[in-house]
């Protein structure tokens, strides 16, 4: 008897331990994933800069300082071979090995400096410019031998420093990993999400109100209910196929535009909002409705003046979670062509754009070593946004949701 009880208690402990083990293992996965991403990506937010003694008067840039004060200065700079001029100066200062030291990011920085101060063209000056990706990777301890050597040389001359990579937050996609940034993709994501929100929120809320407050129980409403519940579980790539067939091939809307992305994601998010909305409306107690009806409000007035405001926090929570999901969605957007190389941020919802998750996917496909840390850094940015949105949802839930 004693032995049996001991055995049963041991089984109890084992079971309990198995549960604890499962939870801790899941947490461990989460921690491992987050730590890996942070560890790999944190370097992407910093970049190395090297000092170059620039001698622009002697370079063959053919830029006129007077013209740089004119209105088409940025075009002139874009056309000039700044990269060549920088590399020439770098080769003079650090030997022939420096021919890979600077890339597009340095040219862009110099161009900006020239716009601010055109006198750089007329004098010798020493500037800190961001180094090319291969040198950057080497300086962070993961490069090839030739680059490591150059880094050592630069360090011995005190001509290398680490700075925060503002360009990563303000630039867009580029071919050179040292010059890429997330701004274009972030703007695309923002426009897409706004389109999604504007379409999915009102439609979702109205549908939830109808189904919960007005719909009679009959076959039609059953069909609507089943199709909404099913749509919430349909694979997202199917929505991408729908968007491709209907919005692009049938309606001929512009490819890879936030408008089409937003429409597709709206169809995907709407069922989530409907389900959240129905739950929120259901949790408003009937006494509220009865009281309003009792003082003579019409059914519409009851819903729009009393039930909806009380259900709104719950609906908003569901909406934000749905939006966060839409923000992280990649597959349907690949289907509608949002995988092009877009080097400038979109100006409107009909212009070609990229979104952050797709940008991450595209960068993850690149072979250059510099792309690895930039991809992880972009993932950190995306995760921060998701965290902020989910945090907002939790805050709203705790702050405004009432338990009746």
């Amino acid at each position, binding site marked *: 008897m004693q032995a049996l009880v001991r055995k049963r208690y041991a*089984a109890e402990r084992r079971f309990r331990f198995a549960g604890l*083990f499962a939870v801790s293992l899941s947490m461990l996965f989460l921690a491992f994933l987050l730590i890996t991403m942070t560890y790999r990506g944190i370097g992407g937010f910093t970049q190395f800069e090297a000092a170059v003694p620039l001698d622009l008067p002697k370079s063959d840039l053919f830029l006129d300082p007077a013209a740089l004060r004119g209105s088409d200065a940025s075009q002139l700079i874009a056309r000039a071979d700044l990269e060549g001029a920088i590399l020439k100066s770098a080769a003079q200062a650090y030997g022939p090995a420096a021919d890979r030291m600077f890339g597009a990011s340095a040219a862009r920085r110099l161009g900006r400096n020239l716009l601010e101060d055109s006198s750089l063209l007329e004098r010798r000056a020493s500037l800190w410019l961001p180094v090319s990706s291969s040198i950057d990777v080497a300086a962070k301890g993961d490069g090839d031998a030739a680059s490591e050597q150059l880094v050592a040389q630069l360090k011995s001359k005190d001509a290398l420093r680490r700075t925060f990579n503002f360009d990563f937050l303000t630039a867009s996609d580029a071919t050179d990993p040292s010059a890429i940034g997330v701004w274009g993709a972030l703007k695309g994501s923002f426009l897409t999400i706004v389109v999604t929100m504007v379409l999915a929120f009102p439609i979702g809320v109205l549908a939830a109100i109808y189904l919960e407050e007005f719909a009679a129980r009959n076959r039609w409403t059953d069909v*609507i209910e089943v199709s909404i519940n*099913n749509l919430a579980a349909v*694979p*997202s*790539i199917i929505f991408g196929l729908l968007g491709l*067939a209907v919005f692009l091939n049938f309606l001929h809307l512009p490819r890879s535009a936030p408008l089409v992305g937003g429409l597709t994601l709206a169809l995907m998010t709407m069922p989530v909002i409907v389900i959240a909305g129905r739950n929120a409306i259901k949790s408003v107690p009937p006494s509220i409705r009865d009281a309003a009806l009792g003082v003579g409000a019409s059914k519409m007035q009851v819903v729009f003046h009393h039930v909806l405001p009380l259900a709104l926090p719950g609906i908003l929570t569901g909406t934000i979670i749905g939006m966060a999901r839409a923000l992280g969605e990649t597959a349907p957007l690949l289907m509608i062509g949002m995988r092009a190389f877009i080097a400038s941020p979109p100006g409107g919802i009909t212009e070609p754009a990229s979104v952050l998750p797709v940008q991450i996917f595209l960068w993850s496909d690149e072979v250059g070593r510099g792309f*690895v840390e930039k991809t992880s850094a972009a993932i950190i940015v995306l995760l921060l946004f998701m965290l902020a949105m*989910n945090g907002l949802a939790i805050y709203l839930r705790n702050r405004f949701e009432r338990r009746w």
Partner: protein
Amino acid sequence: MTLGLALAAVLAIACVAGWLGFSRARAARAGGAKLHSLPTYHGSYAVLWVVLPALLFLAAWVPVQGSLVDQAVLSSPEGLKLPDFDMQRDAILSEAREIAHGDRDVGFNPESTTLAPRFEEAEARYSVAGIAVSVLIALGAAAFAVRRVSPAFRARTSVERWLMALLIAASLIAILTTLGIVLSLMFESLRFFRMVPVTDFLFGTQWSPQTAIRADQAGSSGAFGSIPLFWGTFFIGAIIAMIVAIPLGLMSAIYLTQYAHPRVRTWLKPMLEILAGIPTVVYGYFAALTVAPAVRDLGLALGISSASSESALAAGLVMGIMIIPFISSMADDSIAAVPQAMRDGSLAMGATKSETIRKVVLPAALPGVVGGVLLAVSRAIGETMIVVMAAGLAANLTANPFASVTTVTTQIVQLLTGDQEFDSAKTLAAFALGLVLFLITLVLNLIALTVVRKYREAYE
């Protein structure tokens, strides 16, 4: 631009009409009349009357205007000189349109430059016509609505009828979306099945669509047997991922609901939900960069020489991790729905907590858990980014978890993101795959939703 102008005009008229309706009703009330509806309803009634017909007209007009402009341009003297060949003419037309809109300076075809002014003229003419008609409609409707304001007029009833129509329309969109999915997938799939027989597609074991790109490659029409894809999908999503997710998810749910201190639970549960909130592209990158090399090394260490760096195991493992919170929350709901009396009865008989859970709570919650698992499977086989980034492209029919298999979703992405000729069997095959995937997930979802609902009703 012109559309924006028309919208702005209609909205301005709507505002004025709304204000007129509102103030007329208020004046009537100030004059001592007893209104049936509040003045705001009279105002809203006018706004609805102005906005809805004009918007409907504009929605219908925009596509009509495009083709009218095209016809006008083609019938102009310059347009008649264009080649009859449809595709070339369309290319010139679209270039001319872009020049006329200022999107580009010089066309690839010289004709488009001469055609651009015609475009501008025609567009100006028809857009002015469109704006004029929509403004007329709006004005007419405004006059009609504002004149109807009277104490006895039941504006509220009318407005509420409009609102009701809006509510019904909103909820019909869900059906329309489902219909749209089915129809668009069916339509393209039928075109595909005209090129490739259904039986070859469903029961073939060879998948190599790449050879079908060029029609002139004699003898290689491509093989579209989808069995290896569905096996790969099933292997990764329904076997490997579930082996990871079901025990971990279920045990997590049991621990969190039955054992954990409430304070611990309030912290751990949101943490677990973070796992569900992480975008799949992040999981995919994690799988490809960290898990896949580790799995390959493990395979090589175990002496499996065919271990691939795009193994099914890596993708399945990460997908399982992604599914854990999903299963856990479904199991959580089902366990919470088991009546306390059943638990109390078991505990009163002297059973330990774990015995109660294993022999009473879990069997009682089983339908709900099974429904949750089915939903999880449906989500796993439709999951795209993890397998696109971590699983391979080779269509192997193998049960070796260290080998590379491909999935339906990977192939859909692969087929649709290369070159885009819309009529090739290669592109259409993606829609056929999508259709089968949709049907499978539909059946899984329907079974799961029915099971879960039946189960909930059983204890309510």
